[in-house]
């Protein structure tokens, strides 16, 4: 085992895949000597050079469109978009083109593209650099959507994403420095499989991305109240691991769904529906399902206000305790 940060884990996945297959190519702004906006690709240009690391002008729409065209011809592009907020600019190529190419060619063309971008608040970057826009894309058939949290998952899922035949959106949280022990040997983590980050019996906290850390902290503190919380890290949003959600809720009988994106219309609604539609999970419920999500407002710049936006462990604990009172 070795200790790697989230940043290093993604970088190692990219480097291993680029070494394995020279059609794996990083495409994006400031990827070269600068190392990308969050330094994820730092040092890679020295090893792989301009054939596998392509720096582009500031042209998000065309960067993604160009990557789609290249992917159709055999490249395995990994596109970096500096901030998830700029996914609005990439929406046409992702939604109308990458997601439709296999269908409109009746299976003759593939777009094996990975779209990497970081999302979420906590950086003091205000309303246009801190959003969580995953639900802009989760309703689009043809896309696969990952949003892992821990270094080991980031590495294993990035490698699977690069080897996948379909377009994969790989959303990253910005806690790039968080470390974890990960295996030395080569490994893959399958797309579409959730992971139980902490086992528990009394309540399921179902989440993904940065709020996995918040949920784990809440679960640790809930032990003081003799509540054993299970933390389900979805890791993949599409295709969703419904079996893992159902199994956990059937076991615990209580569910709190957590994400940083605003509550209204957020992906949590899909998770709640998954539970409500399943006869066994529905019957197992001892209390209504709760949601703890980002506040329904743009991200304020002010540090104290910004901190109030995403779910805190306090808000998660309060929601859990409410389920035990009802």
């Amino acid at each position, binding site marked *: 085992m070795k200790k790697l940060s989230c940043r290093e884990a993604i970088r190692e996945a990219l480097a291993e895949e680029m070494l394995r297959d020279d059609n794996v*190519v990083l495409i994006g702004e400031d990827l070269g000597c600068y190392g990308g906006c969050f330094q994820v690709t730092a040092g890679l240009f020295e090893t792989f050079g301009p*054939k596998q690391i*392509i720096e*582009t*002008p500031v*042209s998000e*729409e*065309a*960067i*993604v*469109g*160009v*990557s*789609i*065209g*290249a*992917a*159709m*011809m*055999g*490249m395995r592009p990994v596109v970096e978009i500096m901030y998830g907020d700029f996914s609005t600019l990439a929406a*046409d*190529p992702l939604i*109308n*083109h990458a997601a439709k190419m*296999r*269908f*409109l*060619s*009746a*299976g*003759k*063309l*593939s777009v094996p593209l990975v779209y990497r971008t970081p999302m979420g608040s906590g950086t003091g970057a205000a309303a246009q650099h801190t959003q969580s826009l995953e639900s802009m894309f989760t309703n689009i*058939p*043809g896309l*696969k959507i990952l949003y892992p949290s821990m270094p080991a998952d980031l590495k294993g899922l990035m490698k699977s994403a690069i080897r*996948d*035949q*379909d377009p994969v959106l790989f959303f990253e949280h910005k806690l790039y420095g968080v470390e974890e022990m990960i295996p030395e040997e080569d490994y893959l983590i399958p797309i579409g499989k959730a992971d139980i980050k902490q086992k528990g019996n009394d309540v399921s906290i179902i989440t993904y991305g940065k709020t996995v850390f918040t949920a784990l902290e809440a679960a640790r503190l809930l032990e003081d109240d003799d509540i054993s919380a299970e933390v389900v890290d979805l890791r993949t949003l599409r295709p969703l691991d419904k079996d893992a959600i159902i199994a956990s809720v059937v076991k615990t009988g209580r569910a709190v769904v957590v994400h940083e994106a605003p509550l209204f219309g957020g992906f949590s609604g899909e998770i709640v529906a998954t539970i409500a539609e399943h006869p066994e999970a529905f019957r197992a419920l001892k209390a209504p399902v709760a949601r703890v999500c980002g506040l329904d407002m743009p991200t304020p710049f002010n540090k104290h206000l910004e901190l109030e936006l995403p779910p805190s462990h306090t808000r998660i604990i309060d929601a859990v305790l409410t389920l035990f009172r009802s």
Partner: protein
Amino acid sequence: MAFELDKDKALSTLSLMLRIRLFEEKIEEMFSYHVMHGTTHLAIGQEAVHAGVSPALDPMDWIVTTHRCHGHTLAKGSSIEEMFAEFLGYSNGLAYGLGGSMHLIDVDRHNAGSSAVVGSGVPIATGMALQLKRSGSKQLAVAFFGDGASSRGAIHESMNIASVMRLPVLFLCEHNMYGMSACARDMVSTDSIAHRGASYGIESRMVDGNDVEAVFESVTHAADYIREHGKPYLLETRTYRFSGHSKNDKKLYRTHEEEQQWLQRDPIALFEQRLIERKQMSVIQMESLRQSIKDEMDTTVEQLMNNPQELTIEEAAGFTYASKEDSAR
């Protein structure tokens, strides 16, 4: 002296222009009888561009077309049977009936299909050129777009990228004067879209898009330039859409006089006149060619419609993601 196609090439070019015209007229007829579902975008009047581009290129060069893609697809050599079947939504169509009129595609003939979001195919063709270059190929990619789409940011971004990365892409503007109804006079900031090439450091030219030999010569020149210099090229072809934007267009946005003026320059009539003057073909031969193509269209459609074949919804859904077998490749 103006460029002239040799006799064989001239005859095959006229034959292709007639196939395109008669194919679209057949489509128009089928829509008027309500045989067809959805809508269609005809390009009657633009046959010189269709017949002058792909035939001037290497068959291995790639094209990315637009929603007005019938002529380009025929020019790449697709079968009319598979094309009509696609229009009818049949599973023996080019895209198994999943795309229809706006999404003709024929990967085996290096036609990567169309984006029906105007202008969005241009970055895709640019990306195809990027991978062609990376893999050491001498092929190029053609990005078709219209005067309407020329206002899209994606096209400007793509031209800048193609220029700085030196990509083998032919930006082919099919300027037919109109977006849906909006006239280029009111929508495009410059007299010639080709002039915009200079601002991206891209060589460019404007050519009479109703003169098939002029288009053919310009495309040949552009392709030679792209392959020799490893740089993109912008070619603007000036033509006119005799048809409306799509079915049910009353064409209220333009005058009868304007249409009549352009009809005087019908690209097929112009080319036929030349062939007669050069004694390369007689009027009788032309009539017989036209009739045989028309018969082929009628017979093909009749045979298809006698044997309709459709995918099930499960089969269609199977093309949303790669299958396990695809993934193992």
